[in-house]
């Protein structure tokens, strides 16, 4: 079960190659052609990525996560959301590596099969690094005015946190 991701990956690649073989596609030529495009895309996002990582690293190093957790936990206790998961919620839209280590911290401290551990697992499994995706997608194609993207994406993130605690209670209590 834990190797499921590997199987999906290998099945996906073999599926594409088999289909292309049957259709007599010029597979190797196509690969080189596509890979060349990919290279340009990767380079074009570097400036935006430096800008994002710089701001995010400073923000997380400033100790804001701990301060926010401390301030907001009484409020969260009232609506039944486990405050212990809050560091993960704050980091998950900002930083992929940061939220991963916050998630591991929670699992190690409270156990994977506790209520807190499960809510954290669902959040880690159901959310993406919002600011990273926004930076990469718009950075690559040179869009400067991103309008309501962040507002809508954060709506999805926040509702995801609340829904995670709701569904864990629904399925495991």
């Amino acid at each position, binding site marked *: 079960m834990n190797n499921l991701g590997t199987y999906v990956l290998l099945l996906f690649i073999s599926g594409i190659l088999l289909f292309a073989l049957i259709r007599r596609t010029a597979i190797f030529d196509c690969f080189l052609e596509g890979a060349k495009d990919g290279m340009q895309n990767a380079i074009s996002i570097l400036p935006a990525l430096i800008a994002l990582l710089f701001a995010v*690293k400073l923000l997380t190093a*400033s100790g804001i996560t701990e301060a926010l957790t401390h301030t907001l936990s009484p409020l969260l206790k009232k609506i039944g959301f486990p405050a212990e998961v809050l560091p993960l919620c704050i980091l998950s839209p900002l930083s992929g590596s940061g939220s991963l280590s916050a998630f591991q911290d929670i699992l190690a401290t409270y156990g994977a099969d506790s209520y807190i551990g499960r809510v954290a697992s669902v959040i880690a499994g159901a959310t993406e690094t919002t600011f990273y995706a926004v930076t990469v*997608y718009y950075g690559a194609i040179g869009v400067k005015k*991103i309008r309501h993207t962040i507002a809508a994406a954060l709506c999805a993130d926040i509702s995801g946190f609340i829904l995670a605690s709701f569904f864990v209670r629904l399925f495991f209590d």
Partner: protein
Amino acid sequence: MMNYIWPCLILFSIVFSVFSGNVLQLGDAVFTSVTEAVTLTIKMLGMFCFWSGIMQIAKVSGLTDKISKLLSPILNRIFPSIRNDVETRNAVAMNVTANLLGLGNAATPLGIAAMRRLQAHSENKSVASNDMVLFVVLNTACIRLIPTTAAMLRHEAGAAAPMDILPATVLTSLLSCTIGLIAARAFEGRHYE
């Protein structure tokens, strides 16, 4: 907007670190962040090349068309304006497929290709169109059928059944993604200049 958010974030962090006593950590972060961005790009360089190559095979062989047709009832509803543009719908379909399968590394280069196609539709190239916003939100709140990484870490932490979070994860991501898309549609009018 980024012209304000970015400097404010940095200035806020610097001021806050003075009060919280984390000034030295902040100094480290200045250097590590830049190096990390370069390391990340080099890592992505290989991934982008590989997946763009594989997907070019899928495209030329006609597999993309088949997957795109399969997803078209949903995609046409989310992006009505690309209904008649098969190329763009194909690009969006491949990105969504990679997301569903949890192949994040493949989803990103495919998503950039789709963004380029969407950009071709908009008049002002430096402003995000409604479709572009919808597409990015779809990716930030992607529906994932298999929570691979989370399950792996749960296994390492000694969970009895690491995949038991799957129903809750699928429902959570499905609903939060829907809410994100509704929010994107709802905010469209207000932010137009």
